[in-house]
């Protein structure tokens, strides 16, 4: 992709995922012209979310109760990578399989699933 929105480097070198920041900017500009600061869920969606044929990705504002991701993050099947280190990543994964959830972080052998030796 040689569009300057997705590839700021020369020769199409891709960096990390920016959550389609260019789409965010356009949505915020539009909202600003209309005199509001809050984005509706369908106004800003990443390209990967829209492209996925299996609807595997849900995107939105984690802090906005009106967005779908807000309830999803509190789903008991949801987890983040390295949760207990306090890095606070914004990507949540959802899996009904215990071994998948457990592979997202380091655990001591003595720690039961769902029960950590120390709070984080």
């Amino acid at each position, binding site marked *: 992709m040689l569009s300057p929105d997705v590839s700021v480097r020369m020769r199409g070198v891709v960096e990390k995922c920016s959550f389609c920041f260019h789409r965010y900017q356009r949505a915020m500009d539009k909202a600003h012209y209309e005199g509001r600061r809050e984005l509706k869920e369908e106004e800003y969606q990443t390209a990967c979310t829209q492209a996925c044929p299996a609807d595997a990705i849900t995107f939105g504002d984690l802090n906005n109760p009106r967005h779908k991701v807000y309830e999803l993050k509190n789903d008991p099947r949801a987890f983040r*990578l*390295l949760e*207990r*280190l*306090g*890095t606070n990543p914004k990507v949540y994964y959802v899996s009904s399989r215990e071994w998948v959830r457990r*592979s*997202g*972080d*380091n*655990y*001591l*052998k003595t*720690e039961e699933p769902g029960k950590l*030796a*120390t709070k*984080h």
Partner: protein
Amino acid sequence: MDSALIPKGVRRCSLGKFTLFLSIVGAVLLWGVYAMFLCWIKGLNQTNMNDYYGFALWIWADLAVIALGGGAFFTGFLKYIVGKDELKNIINYAVLIGFICYSSALLILAIDIGQPLRGWFIFWHANVHSMLTEVAFCLSCYFAVLSIEYVPLVLENRQLDKVPFFHNLAHNMHGVMAVFAATGAFLSFFHQGSLGGVAGVLFGRPFGFREGIFVWPWSFFLFTWSAAACGPCFTLLVTKILEKSTGKKLVADNVVELLAKISGWMLLTYIIAKIADTWYWATVTAPGMGHTLMDFYSNNPVYGIWILVLEIVIGGVVPALILVTKTGRKNPILRMTAFILAVIGVSVNRWVMVLQVMAVPVMPFDIWAMYYPSWQEVATTILPVAYGVILVALSYRYLPVFPQEPKLNPVD
């Protein structure tokens, strides 16, 4: 032929012999310079760094050399602030070693950043919340202080001293030296510490992360402490090497033993603090992040528990116990062993806190990032050593580095 440049009251070898020595070391230096230019012209692909493991051999050398150069600030602090006047007989050499160490560190950083012409970015676009910004500023300021401490020695060259302005300048700088030494100690405290802070603040990397006080992890204070303890050991070690190669006694025993004693007690108190900190980290901090101690020392070809033993016991406890005892200090073999072990200990500590930290797997499904240096990295790491040898040789030959030399080696 160059006898007019040699200080009064001492003897030096023939110019021919000296030039021969310089050209041999110079050849090694040129190899390092060649590797350096390769890195600058062709890029950092000359090293074995990659996106996953971005630390090269030279960055360990950078940290080790800064720790070993700590003899300059600590000896200066002891002499000018605490008032240990006997150390005036070794302070010149300590400053010279410090100057070499810090200029080497800046050179290594210039190579490491890949585009040295953009080196001003860290000063102009400073991130005031970063440990590395702190390091860059304090290191540069401290290098300025070291240059200011080195200049009077250069001006004391027999021919330069004849120029009245230079003579007066050197005299006045000596008079104000305590102010520079105090500023140097202040700056050193922070940049030595911030290098430890770099690893200690990494809450995403349980191997490096440490609790602390306010914004400073405990590794901050441990780094400053180890630099103050092992820097003088390195100075004394290099003094001994110089004495062996020149065949002359350059510093009286009481000065060596005093610095060794202070260094020994600093080392002992440091290693106790280090053991306490490691214990707390291994039993409380790391398990709180889901790791046992052996997670960091298994499932890889190199990093085993041996490195912890080497750093703390062999490189810390043993030299500390030797240097705090009078027998240990007075026995030349034991003393030399202690210096070498202390230098090894602090170097291993810098390796562990930088290179091992980045090698430890981050995600539960990652593997260790093993790496070996390319020849360009080896050459650029040996470059500062060759440069140091040349500068020591030139300074020793033409400058009155050791005030006690004429007395200890009478020339009839």
